[in-house]
């Protein structure tokens, strides 16, 4: 099935409300949306416990306004930095003859799997004013004190390093799904590489960047581990203090509702970008399109490799080197290390189930949102993002509340745990999928229906194969995020369950560093295997 640029450009986007969505689609999407609103329902129940006076007291107390501003500053920096890094890396990997593309392709997504508190702790131990770097490198050179990592710079660096894979995979799925016809045309018409990138490629990437950056922004407002160690007080930090210091569920819930408000504000920014995109959308997914040769980088190859190497050095190599150092030092000191294969298998199993289920569940939400845009589909799409924006602990407690009361038979089972991962991570499956579906020309689907195929069959034979980059990218993101997830895994897993993430936490929280190193290293290694599979398949879609 081949489409030419001329066909694509003359297509119209379906107007709002032109067709009614099939009942099955509406029903399944509504079900998903309702399930994912459970955390908000819980927060409302908890908040209503408090009287108006004490609510006012909680919300006006202390430095809430200042903390909101600090949170937004961090969100703005991290989203921008992640987006830029993701665009650069994604374009280099997908479109150029970057040396070692296949290796970078897998390595660059792995920083996502290291929990932010571990990255923060490791980078502090290396880069803090009196850290490893200072002792082994700076002092001999006569540098008294390297600049402090604490506060905004450190928090921004660490969160960028653990969250840029969200937009990276979204952007790569978009680059995969969009043919190079327009880019080639632009080159043929005599435009240079830069001009083509900025005038053709970049505008095409806007929905992917918007989707990916929204994920980064939501992740940033929900992170606790990284910001607390780097001493940058965000809104989620304030929510955690309500739990850790007061076990005050009412205050925590009231503040978390404010966080939901912040998330809705972030949605509105993304919606604006997406809507502008949809207005002048050009659908360009191709099946079996002609593979044109990757763009030669020439002399630019060196800075390109340097960028990839530097990112990997800070996000992956240094953390893993410190972990290895802990491990070797611990073995030398006679630390007892226990087998971690059981937890590794547990982690891989539940994460794989979460990735698979989230991808399936994401489909109706995305199809409804993209093919039948309207207020209803927007509400469902947005509500599915709330769980990801809330601190993991809040979402976990919400599911404890409903699980123990409504479905005691499922409470503390694998089913409950996978459900929790879906509530937390569904947007990660939705983001890349949405980008892929936006690229699929609805004309092709209509053609299928005109030829007498039923909707579901059209979806299976035409739409689904075109969505493959998005499906693979989305499941990779969910898998990696579930691998490192902590609060829901601790609270909702079956009794006696342990995963790599819980093992890392159990050891590192009590300063058993050697014991923490082994599962942490394994977390990266075990995750690399499905990444080779998922991302390898993403690479092969055009051949």
């Amino acid at each position, binding site marked *: 099935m081949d489409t030419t640029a001329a066909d694509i450009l003359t297509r119209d986007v379906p107007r709002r409300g032109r067709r009614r969505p099939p009942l099955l689609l509406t029903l399944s999407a509504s079900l998903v949306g309702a399930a994912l609103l459970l955390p908000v329902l819980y927060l409302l129940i908890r908040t209503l416990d408090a009287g108006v006076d004490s609510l006012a007291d909680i919300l006006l*107390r*202390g*430095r*809430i306004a200042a903390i909101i501003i600090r949170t937004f500053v961090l969100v703005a920096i991290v989203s921008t930095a992640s987006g830029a890094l993701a665009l650069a890396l994604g374009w280099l990997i997908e479109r150029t003859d970057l040396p070692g593309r296949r290796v970078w392709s897998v390595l660059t997504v792995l920083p996502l799997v290291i929990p932010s508190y571990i990255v923060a702790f490791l980078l*502090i*131990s290396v880069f*803090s*004013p*009196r*850290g490893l770097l200072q002792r082994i490198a700076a002092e001999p050179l006569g540098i008294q004190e390297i600049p402090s990592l604490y506060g905004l710079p450190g928090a921004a660096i660490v969160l960028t390093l653990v969250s840029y894979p969200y937009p990276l995979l979204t952007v790569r799925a978009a680059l995969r799904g969009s043919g190079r016809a327009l880019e080639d045309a632009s080159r043929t018409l005599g435009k240079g590489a830069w001009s083509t990138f900025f005038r053709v490629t970049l505008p095409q990437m806007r929905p992917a960047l918007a989707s990916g950056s929204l994920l980064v922004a939501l992740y940033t407002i929900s992170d606790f581990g990284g910001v607390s*160690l780097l*001493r940058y007080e965000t809104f989620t930090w304030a929510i*955690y*203090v309500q*739990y*850790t*210091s*007061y*076990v005050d*569920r009412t205050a925590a819930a009231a503040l978390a509702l404010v966080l939901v408000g912040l998330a809705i504000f972030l949605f509105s920014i993304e919606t604006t970008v997406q809507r502008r995109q949809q207005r002048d959308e050009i659908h360009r997914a191709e099946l079996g399109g002609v593979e044109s040769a990757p763009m030669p980088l020439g002399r630019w190859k060196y800075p390109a490799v340097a960028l990839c190497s530097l990112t990997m050095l800070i996000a992956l190599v240094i953390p893993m080197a410190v972990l290895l150092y*802990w491990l070797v*030092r*611990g073995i030398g*000191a006679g*630390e007892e290390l226990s087998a971690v294969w059981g937890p590794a298998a547990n982690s891989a*199993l539940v994460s794989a*189930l979460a990735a*698979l289920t989230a991808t399936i569940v994401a489909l109706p939400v995305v199809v409804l949102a993209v093919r039948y845009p309207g207020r209803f589909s927007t509400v469902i799409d947005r509500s599915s993002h709330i769980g990801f924006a809330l601190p993991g602990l809040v979402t976990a*407690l919400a599911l*404890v*509340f409903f699980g*123990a*009361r409504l479905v*005691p*038979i*499922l*409470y*503390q*089972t*694998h*089913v409950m745990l996978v459900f929790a991962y879906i509530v937390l991570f569904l947007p990660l499956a939705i983001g890349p999928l949405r980008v892929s579906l936006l690229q699929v020309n609805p004309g092709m689907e209509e053609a299928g229906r005109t030829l007498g195929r039923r909707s579901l069959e059209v979806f*299976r034979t035409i739409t*689904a*194969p075109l969505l*493959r980059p998005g499906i693979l990218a989305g499941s990779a993101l969910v898998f990696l995020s579930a691998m490192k997830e902590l*609060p829901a895994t*601790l*609270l909702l897993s079956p*009794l*006696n369950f*342990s995963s790599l993430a*819980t093992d890392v936490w*159990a*050891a590192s*929280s*009590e*300063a*058993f560093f*050697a*014991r923490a190193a082994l599962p942490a290293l394994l977390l990266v290694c075990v995750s690399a295997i499905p990444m080779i599979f998922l991302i390898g398949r993403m690479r092969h879609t055009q051949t």
Partner: protein
Amino acid sequence: MFRLLIGLIGVLILIAAAGCQGRPAPTDTPDPAAAPGVASAREPSSLVIYSGRSESLVGPVIEQFSQATGIETRVKYGSTSEIAATILEEGANSPADIFFAQDPGGLAAVESMLGRLPADVLNRVPAHFQSPDGRWVGLSGRARVVVYNTDRLSPADLPDDLRGFTDPKWRGRIGWPPTNASFQAMVTAMRVLWGEDETREWLEGIQANAPTVYPKNTPTVAAAGAGEIDVGFVNHYYLYRFLQEEGETFAARNAHLSGGGPGAVILVAGAGVLDGAQNTENATRFIEFMLSPVAQQYFASQTYEYPLVEGVQVNRLLTPLDEINSPQIDMADLGDLEGTLDLLRDTGILP
């Protein structure tokens, strides 16, 4: 690919079914009318433990309990505050029999859901390590200390008690974890010992010295060792983990303040039995075991804590309790956490 998806959904369902099967737990015996004795007779060998203490610290001693008694333990680990919140959210449906907590604050948060412990269990530890109305009991002790960087300071440079750190010469040199429960318990002790006004003065004095804020004890001790701060206000036992990992070159040590006061108070980790527990008898046996010489010796030698019962050897690395000038203070006196938190909020230390 579609067929692959369908196949995988099938697998998912099978596993879901297995997951349900694999959990014969409390909800499968929903017979509220049965007397506790009958319930425990039906499931003689089971105990559900919610542990706010890390598996790396208490996993081995829970295992020892299982082996000694033949009772099968099923454990949920988390931080003490997370577990406390979980128990509160589960409410009457909580599968937990026992809450093993890192600090009295966590136990106090769920106190209304704990049952009273038998007097003979409570009385194995000194009265001041029991909860006021017998709903939980201390299982191991920890001393509040000042951890100091050995490159910059010697013990002689430290003041007699915490008041000395409000001196401007300590500006920029102090680290503390104000969100930590033990830290807050220390402030509560301070209010008891020094009174409200002096505690407020002290907090303001330290604030004026621009202390570095850490989320927990572990990073505070790490920072003292790295020389990021000169002194930190922490619990004593984290240091020994660092010495174990990094060796004697780790550049921080503990100081027990010679003048005593709140900076040298002894706190406890403890446990309580949930009121609606299915396995009350086993839960009581668990607490008895944790107060037995075997388990107390485990805490002393493996987690570097202070044993609370007579006749157990303190780890040779630790300063014996009778050499610490710790104030006589009841855990019961540390109940007013709310007042401490108000004070910490008032002084702008907590949000």
